[in-house]
């Protein structure tokens, strides 16, 4: 019963990513979309939090990273970038989706 969690809020503005991480379980996935992709920037407080969760897969939506000028060099390691097709695949692969709005 794994969950695909989506986060669309900047972790520098809102507590959403924190709360999502705190409730995700091993085997779940977190996909950062829209302003949520700012959570993928390396070297920040948010990045430290992400790195502490080894058994949750972290994804970010490439189109949203590009829109915000965030090249791969700026991103945390261990992150997988997907496009909208990959978003759909993640939704299929997990039993359900939870949007952290």
């Amino acid at each position: 019963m794994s969950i695909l969690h989506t986060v669309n809020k900047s972790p520098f503005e809102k507590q959403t990513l924190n709360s999502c991480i705190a409730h995700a379980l091993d085997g779940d996935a977190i996909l950062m979309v829209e302003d949520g992709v700012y959570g993928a920037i390396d070297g920040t407080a948010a990045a430290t939090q992400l790195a502490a969760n080894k058994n949750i897969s972290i994804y970010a939506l490439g189109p949203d990273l590009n829109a915000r000028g965030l090249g791969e060099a700026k991103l945390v390691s261990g992150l997988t970038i997907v496009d909208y097709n990959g978003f759909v695949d993640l939704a299929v692969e997990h039993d359900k989706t939870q949007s952290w709005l």
Partner: protein
Amino acid sequence: MKFGIVVNEGPYTHQAADTAYQFTKAVLEKGHEVYRVFFYHDGVNVGTRMTVPPQDERHIQRNWSELGEKYKLDMVVCIAAAQRRGIMDENEAKRQGLDGDNIAPGFRISGLGQLIEAGIQADRLVTFGD
């Protein structure tokens, strides 16, 4: 696989209506089925035909209307949310004594039960909002 899509924010103000569109398009192009797209909260504002965005910007309502026509999507605007925000079809406008309506092609107005039903019938329900 059968998807239900929930759109909770209006056009332009939040990216949610755009992300939902791109996701729904990808779902359909990959050969999955979309059981229903349900517009709730400010999402009902996607369904007005009166938007006239600048020429160099995307036309969110028209994108949805065209996707809906191409794939025969069931695009439902929540009636309770629509009444609070001024989205009306011909029947509702008449019932409320209004002098006109503004719903866009391909959208229909119905009750919240349609959202629950989407949750029951779809294999995956994906929500886009703020």
